[in-house]
């Protein structure tokens, strides 16, 4: 059974040569050449013993994968909402931020009375629950207040609304929590150390291993939910055709709320991951990860759930390893500053090379990108 939420409509391809196409081909070829030169340059540097060591590369890849799996979880929310309602919920990054911010309260209190260190597992589960509940509630409220009245409006209107919602939520949190960055308590000692299984120490910290494990478990749970449960089938039916789904006895509004709630819960899980990986949160925390997660969703094929996860991990690798591997190889200084630029460039290139994403299907004319 397919896990696609987006409708699939076949469309014959038009063959027409013009100068826009030739410009795009030029961009494609130039990008490929630049990437090749960069990668070859990096390998030469590596062979010559310059640049980062093998261990540094390995750590970079591991940390990129963990960040990427966080993007993937946020991307699930984008992908599901896009699949069901057909618009980009720009405010989804803020849903993620709200979970992280409120989760902070539930982490600071046990840290202050020592509970955080004495029973780390329970504390983290509490933070996870608080973050998930907050994000879910925020997502549901946003849907109810801002998006439901716009059902059936021209496509750009919900998108512009979601930009407004995004700003409103950001600055509401700035007003509530203040603008200063606050820090989560450090990972409990058991997690901060490198993971060891059966006496073999692996080169990955417990926190990172936990993040990847949580991402994989959430992904499997979500996949099960969407493909095997009744609610999941209803969601896919609504994604396919709202009116027909309604005629088949599906409560469309309820299903859409469920979609937002599940997306919110996943963003809440991602919020906990952010807390464990980066610790610092402020009201702008959601903005960049939100856009990157959207990029991840597009990369994997929007509306496609495994695609979102794959896209997240790939984007994590692009922005983590890409600057050093490609730009470093081209001899550009200060590559770490260009991390975000690489992520955005990846978005542009993906949409030029393969607008339907890696696992996406060709979309119908109305949904053509």
């Amino acid at each position: 059974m397919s896990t696609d939420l987006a409708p699939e409509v076949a469309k014959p391809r038009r063959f027409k040569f013009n100068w826009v196409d030739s410009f795009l081909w030029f961009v494609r070829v130039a990008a490929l050449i630049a990437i090749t030169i960069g990668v070859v340059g990096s390998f030469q540097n590596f062979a010559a013993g310059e640049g980062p060591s093998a261990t540094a590369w390995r750590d970079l890849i591991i940390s990129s994968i963990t960040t990427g799996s966080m993007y993937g979880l946020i991307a699930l929310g984008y992908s599901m909402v896009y699949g069901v309602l057909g618009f980009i919920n720009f405010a989804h990054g803020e849903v993620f931020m709200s979970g992280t911010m409120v989760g902070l309260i539930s982490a600071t209190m046990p840290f202050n009375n020592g509970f955080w260190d004495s029973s780390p597992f329970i504390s983290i589960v509490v933070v996870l629950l608080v973050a998930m509940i907050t994000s879910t509630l925020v997502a549901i409220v946003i849907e109810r207040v801002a998006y439901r009245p716009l059902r059936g409006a021209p496509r750009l209107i919900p998108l512009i609304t979601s930009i407004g919602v995004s700003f409103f939520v950001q600055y509401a949190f700035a007003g509530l929590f203040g603008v200063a960055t606050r820090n989560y308590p450090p990972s409990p000692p058991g997690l901060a150390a490198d993971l060891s299984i059966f006496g073999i120490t692996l080169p990955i910290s417990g926190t990172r291993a936990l993040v990847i494990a949580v991402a994989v478990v959430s992904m499997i749970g979500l996949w099960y939910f969407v493909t095997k449960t009744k609610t999941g089938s209803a969601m896919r039916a609504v994604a396919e055709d709202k009116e027909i789904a309604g005629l088949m006895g599906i409560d469309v509004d309820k299903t859409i709320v469920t979609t937002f709630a599940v997306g919110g819960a996943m963003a809440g899980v991602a919020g906990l991951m952010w807390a464990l990986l980066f610790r610092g949160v402020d009201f702008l925390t959601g903005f960049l990860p939100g856009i990157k997660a959207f990029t991840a969703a597009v990369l994997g094929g929007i509306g496609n759930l495994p695609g979102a996860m794959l896209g997240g991990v790939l984007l994590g690798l692009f922005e983590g390893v890409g600057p050093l591997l490609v730009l470093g190889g081209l001899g550009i200084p200060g590559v770490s500053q260009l991390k975000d630029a690489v992520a955005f460039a990846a978005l542009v290139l993906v949409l030029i090379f393969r607008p339907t994403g890696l696992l996406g299907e060709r979309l119908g004319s109305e949904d053509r990108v």
Partner: protein
Amino acid sequence: MSIDRYVRKWGPVAGLVMSFMAAIGMIRSFDGRMMINPVLSLGYIALLLPPAVFGYLAARGEVNVLEEQERDVPGGAVKGAMVGLIAGLVTVVFMLVTAPFDLSGFFPNINDAMVDVMTFHQGLGLGSLILIAVSTAVGAMGGALHGASEVVRAGVLRSLGWVMLFALFELVVTDIIDVRAIVRFIYAAGGGLQLWSALIIAALAWWLGGRYAGRRAEFSDMAKASEAGSRLRYSLIGIGILLLIILPMLVGGIVNELLINVALFILMGLGLNIVVGQAGLLDLGYVAFFAVGAYGTAVLTSPLSPTFAPALNWWLALPIVMIFAAIAGVLVGTPVIRMRGDYLAIVTLGFGEIVRLLLLSDWLTPYFGGAQGITRIPGITVGPLTISGTSPELFIYLTMIFVAIAAYISYRAQNSRVGRAWAAMREDEDVAEAIGISTVKAKLVAFVTGAIIASFAGALFSAKVGTVFTNSFDVLVSIIILVVVIVGGMGSIRGVALGALMLIGILGGPKSQGLLTEFAEFKLLIYGAILVFMMLKRPEGLLPSVRRSRELHGAEAEQDAWLDRRGDFVDEDAEEAIT
């Protein structure tokens, strides 16, 4: 007795809004601004607005396009009072729940000072009762207003509106009047209107407005019709232009500074209006073109430009910058030509951020100065004068000229061949292509025109400020220009001007303050709220273009919506047969 459905709905909402505004520190911060000295501060206006507005809404009940509204004063007042009562109770409960704990570690704005303002400085016990009583009374007034006759309603709203305008525009009014005795009569020493002057303004607004309400309709009918009308219209436009020319001479430096900001945003708004409003391409990276204009001018004119410093005259640099902007427009426009709607929005946003990040990076620092930016950009030479930001009363005229050019371009473009192609493309791209419009060309022309207008704004901006830094060009600017266009009315030139005046002038731009400095902290919150509100209630903007509003509110659409709301069964087949 069962409580009215709308009272149950809006009462708690009003209470939550009040509590929310208190929790983010808005009430306390606004309390610093006196509106009517010493009775009323902006904080209390903000605090009491929810019960009034939601009381009105509860009294209105269900909206029905085709049926006359029921209006009765006592009934409305009772409903409004109940909304106010519930709102007051919710707010008091919120204060009582938070007061015993010290939450300032997490929520810096929920503290004793907040409670003090909210309870009218009377302590939690007595103050809570006062809050509930006042909220109930204001709610009742809001509800009663709905029941009142048309004349009374219009009169009350007009009076309140004019009093608020005079209080908000204190700085402008004092600059214009500039006679100490009169100013002292109108405004109190600590800021804010005097009580009596507020009453006089209210009475005048009521009386004069009532007298001329009928005449105005007559006037606008006349302006629409016949030859005499066109003469009238031209003379009105003439008077408007004359006022615009005189205004900067009357007001002081601060207000002129503000007007320049407003004019720059009108300029960018006009450019984005072509891309978003006319061609329907949602560009979230518009600031990139502004950056091209500003950095282009900086590199070409500043003697301190890091690598390449020809130190040209501003007027010589301008055409070169325009060419750069046009190239940038093509470079951004071509890859996104095949993309639609939301993808286009995100990709352009990505382009905007890429430009900023590249300008900031070590890689391009040798050319653009990185975080240090480029400084010592000279002013603009006009004859013997050098005009820069230090003489805002002259700079404003220069900006106005460019606004006029941009307005002329948009006006001419609207009804030209390409303008009609944009409109067709906006409504349906496939159909537009099918009837032989080259959408590729139309899109590129839109991007390039928009880019060139933004580069004007960039060139003026860098000459005015004298320095360019990357933080003037973040994504926030793009979004705020978009809000200006949307609030004013997509596709409408007057709308953009109104939007910029209201938003940038009063609330303030991304990096600049508006007339209400108290808003600075909350302006982006308000921007977000306005954007959502406009999209939900008036997507065509305040002063929409005729064509655009027809698109969004066809007569049939209204009828359908009405039928939907009634929940009646609509036989779609039968309807199709009719149409």
